[in-house]
């Protein structure tokens, strides 16, 4: 019905066979039901929306909560939400009638993309030690979304394909 393909560190492409599936309304529904209605709710709960290689269902805790997040936000859950700017760029975007992307938009400020990648894949210090642990919120190549997200996507496609084929 659809495939999740990844060729970017901060965006996943959702692709289907049938032409004309992805229109403005479909992207709007993808944003409200999948991105806002599932992916961001999972992230807020400290749950990775990605079925990643590492296999961690929940985001790893802060190494030194006194230093970070300090008094800027609650220490738990680990929600990738400090100012909310980074996640505000997590969007569904139409590419063509058969493709759309889920993730950080290409028009996001460079520092948002850098921060997104740092959180998504993690960073290491000069000494080679882990600095920021990976907290996957966008799939990497070979990965896909968790079942709660996939179910929402699947149901959305089923409704859309029914509408398209039934109107013929």
């Amino acid at each position, binding site marked *: 019905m659809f495939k999740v393909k990844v060729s970017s560190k901060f965006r996943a492409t959702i692709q289907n066979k049938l032409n004309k599936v992805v229109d403005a309304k479909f992207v709007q529904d993808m944003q409200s039901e999948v991105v806002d209605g599932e992916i961001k709710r*999972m992230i807020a709960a400290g749950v990775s929306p990605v079925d990643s290689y590492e296999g961690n269902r929940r985001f790893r805790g802060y190494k030194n909560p006194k230093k970070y997040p300090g008094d800027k936000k609650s220490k738990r859950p680990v929600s990738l939400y400090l100012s909310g700017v980074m996640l505000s760029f997590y969007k569904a975007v139409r590419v063509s009638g058969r493709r759309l992307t889920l993730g950080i938009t290409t028009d996001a400020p460079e520092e948002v993309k850098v921060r997104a990648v740092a959180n998504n894949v993690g960073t290491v210090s000069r000494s080679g030690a882990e600095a920021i642990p990976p907290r996957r919120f966008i799939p990497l190549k070979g990965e896909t979304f968790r079942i709660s997200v996939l179910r929402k996507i699947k149901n959305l496609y089923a409704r859309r394909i029914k509408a398209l084929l039934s109107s013929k």
Partner: protein
Amino acid sequence: MKVTGKTISDSETSVEIDLFEGRSLPLKVKKRIQEDVGNYLVEQTLVAMNEKKSPVQGEGGFKALSKNYRKRKLEEVGSGEANLEFDGVMKDELNFYPTKNGIEIGVYGERARAADGHNNLSGKSSLPTRRFLPDEGQTYKKSIQAEVDRIVADAISEEVGFKKSDFKGVTTKKELFDILAQKFGPMSRAELTLAVFRNEDLVEILSDLDLLGFF
């Protein structure tokens, strides 16, 4: 999806859920259902807990924290919300395992007793009940239950598959839905219709047989 048993010990607070309800299914289908439903229930439970709501039908929202505990949690965690997350260990220990007839879901590890404290499955807890595991006689919320039914239907239809010959001689809408109900299990026509459109191969078969007009 019925709760058929529960375990409360120092290392485990869990409930057993029957996912197959006596249905004879190939092992491959059973394994996929266990994996998909188990992960789905754990994820939905964690999201509901964070939103201070029970995933269990009829349990509603979680009661606010007591004044004293809220003060302590605010000081130590920076949040005074009744989301059952202090250091996160209990939620990290929420998991599921396959059983003969379905799965068991619960908290496995050092916070098992704390989980019973919140759920009161033992009937011995003095804490306000904030239930995130259904007790015997309870079910998950309707929206969660409905999606589990869809996961089961999809696993059966995708793993077992359809053939053109399954629909041989179908000339009426009723005949078509009778066959679909046999394959997917008892469902409303609206749910059966969506189950069809979630299965690409089936859509192709029905299109070839010119039967899509019945939807």
